[in-house]
């Protein structure tokens, strides 16, 4: 199950754009990249995890997001999850995490709602 992973820097935020399927078989790769980003720069002003292009996300992928969010909070970093309206939003909704993780639906919502 393929996963697309792209890192872009824009407007002072480090964006991790995921596409494809985030599940048991691909989560480790994404986690590694996320950890690398955190280790490389322990205090980037803002990390955005963009899930809008994800076609699928399962409970393993969900764990990854929760753990990343918890790490960011512990380190005093700002982490924004952009869910889009697809499968990512659905699972975050079902698991009651939309508000808890400060998830925004679209990029434009990033700043006003940005949790950190």
């Amino acid at each position, binding site marked *: 199950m393929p996963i697309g992973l792209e890192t872009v820097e824009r407007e002072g935020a480090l964006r991790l754009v995921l596409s494809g399927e985030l599940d*048991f078989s691909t989560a480790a790769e994404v986690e590694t990249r996320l950890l690398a980003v955190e280790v490389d720069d322990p205090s980037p002003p803002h990390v955005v995890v963009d899930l809008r292009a994800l076609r699928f996300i399962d409970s*393993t992928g969900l764990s990854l997001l929760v753990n990343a969010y918890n790490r960011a909070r512990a380190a005093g970093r700002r982490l924004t999850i952009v869910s889009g309206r697809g499968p990512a939003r659905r699972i975050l909704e079902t*698991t009651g995490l939309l508000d*808890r993780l400060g998830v925004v639906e679209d990029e434009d919502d990033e700043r006003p709602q940005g949790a950190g």
Partner: protein
Amino acid sequence: MTGSASWGPSRSGYSGRRARQRLRRIWLAAALGLATALGAMDVAAADATLISFLVAPPIVAAIGTRPRSTMLVGAYSVAVAVVLGVPDHVFFHREHLVRVGVVALGAGLGTWIAFVRRGEWAARRRYALVARVGEITQASLDPEVMVIEVAKLAASELADWCFVFLRDDGGGVRQVAAVHEDPERQRQAWELLVRYPLDLRRDEGPAAVIREGRSRMYREVDDDVLRAISQDDENMKLLRALGMRSAMVVPLAARGRVLGAMAMATAESGRTFDEADLAMGETLAARVAVALDNAELYVRLSRAESGLRASRDELQAILDGVADAVTAQRPDGQLVYANHAAVRTLGFDSVDELLATPVDDIVSRFEYLDERGEPVALDELPGRRALAGQRSPEPMLVQFGRRGVPGRSWVRIKAEPVVDEDGKPILAINVMEDVTEVHKATEAQRFLSQASAILASSLDYKATLANVARLAVPRVADWCAVDVLENGEIKHVSVAHSDPAKVEVALDFQRRYPVDPNLPTGVPNVLRTGQPELTPHVPDELLVDSAPDEFWLETVRSLGMRSAMIVPMVARGPRMLGAITLVSAESGRRFDEEDLALAQELAGRCALAVDASRLFRDRDQIRQTLQESLLPAELSQPPGVEVAGAFKAVPGEGYELGGDFYDLFETGPGTWGAIVGDVCGKGPDAAKLTAQARYTLRTSAMRELSPSRILAELNEAMLRASDDKRFCTVLYVRLELAGDTARLCFSSGGHPLPVIVRAGGEIEEVGEPGTLIGVVPDPDLEDEVVELGPGDAVVLYTDGLTDASAPDVVWDPEELVSRVRSAGARSADEIAKSLLNSVEDSSERSRPRDDSSALTAGRA
């Protein structure tokens, strides 16, 4: 250079000059003596006639001394003649004056003769000097020795000092000679030159001459001159100590190049150089320069020649030494050159024999096949293409072998044309690189990796072993058979040959003759000992000895067995899994140790694959057992309610343990707890948490009624286990049964909500999703209530059900339920089972993405 005390080669060296000087002095003394004696005789005889004889001494002097001495003698004689007029009493008489006049005339004549003689002598001396230099330079001497000899000559004949400086290859100048008659003074000069090597930047002296290529003359060597050529005061002091009076420096120039300079100086002789000396010096220098230049040219020439010879020999040695066969071929195809390797490759005994054989005879001995085993037309060979005018034709990989002799070598043939001035090919140089070993190794690796790919393609090891056996023929062997050991019995798995008809014969043969496990050789032996068997050559006697009957012998003979090897398949442990038999027949190849190594490598990989497939099978069984142990074996049945649970693991091997769980238990009189949950992630850790979650919920449910509080307790418990960053979704349902009513009180911790199936067919999802358990300390968890009427049912499930075909299709739970209902599922059990089956049927993927569970409860 100058340590020698002998001045040998110079005929007119210092000793000659000194002898000449001595002779001149004697001659002078004799002439003066004669004049004095004549005077004395005249006085004694008192005869004025004797005065006339005084004409003789100047003439005598002219013969043996220099003009100056002759003049001296002449003057003396005239003086004596004048004085003698007094005792002879003829002073200033006519007679006396005539005689004095005669003597004076004689003195003049003598002086003239002396001058003429000196001129002749000088010319002769110059001629002799130049001739001598010519002799020295023409003798095949080392250039430096030659320079030193000339310097010695110059120092004796022309000057007192002679220095020679030569340019070297590095642009510097080195002193080659510093010659003086006195070895002690010579050593002194040499030390000076060593201490102060010539500084090319000086404005005067040898440096300037070398730079400009023009002679310089210093008639008087005064302090100004010394200062101009010296580098410091000490240098000047040492130079002054050489006692130079007059000096000249001439360039050693040839073909417009200044090779160095020769400096000559007078010292104790007190002579002053004149233009004639300079001309002489230049002549000498020109001779030396030409000789030096020639010597250098000769050295370069001989170096070039020897280099050429050496490189030709070297080329021959290299070509003979290379392992590749190298030949040169004329346009008519005839070979004109072949190195040793070519002679060997083409099967000849000597180069001469090979070159004498017509090319058609050579060619007809061999056959060339391409990589696929098709014959190669001769015109396609790179050598022929090169002769046809093609530059750098594409190298060709061919199988190459003698006709009628088994065994083929793989050679890579490269060729390059040699063209004449018009660009017409006159030769083709062929290089045949024997790549048999490389090719074999490459083929072996390719074969092994293909075998590995086949082995990895499936866990059905019998099928894959049969595929590997088919892959092995005819590349590795003509026959390949695989046998495995199953419960101590030898089982034939596969026999492969490229001809299916032959396979039939072999299968029939195997049926007819079951393997005797006690055979001392063959597969039973290999399986027993674990040692491979290699029979490079299978002699007919062996078949005769092994034959139980005539049919056996006939059949085996008809297979044409030539060479055979049997290798064991041994797994970790070690555990004997089976054996692979490889037989060579019609190809005529003989197996060697290398082939055996390849077969063993193949067997090793097969063993690994068989072992892995067994392990996977075992592991899958363990996984299923474990997964099932996490679920209740049998659900207790509350009165008046039918409950059914169903779980479907992802089918197939190698999948990880999932985190699904469900349970139903009695918590009190008329109240039951039902849970459906899913731990995020997979694997043994997820399974462990599954069990923990299930028992934590059970324990809480005994003390607590509110589903949301039960979930909150689980949440706290999971947060406390801080080392485990895992979460789960749980749906807890309290089922209250009282009389005719059934009430569901439930709470969802991030889990898919219950789906109610009404007796009338309506289907609805109820409740609000709460927060995933184990993430935050204050999850949003609400208790919700729904009544279950007669004929109603509730469906609880995990997202494996709806996500089975994700991301292509994500099922709507209500739609799923309505589909199974319309397909006839009514009871809780039917609904649960049909739901899971429908998922599998409708899945467009080869298998569902995740495990799925369903728990249904229906009122009668």
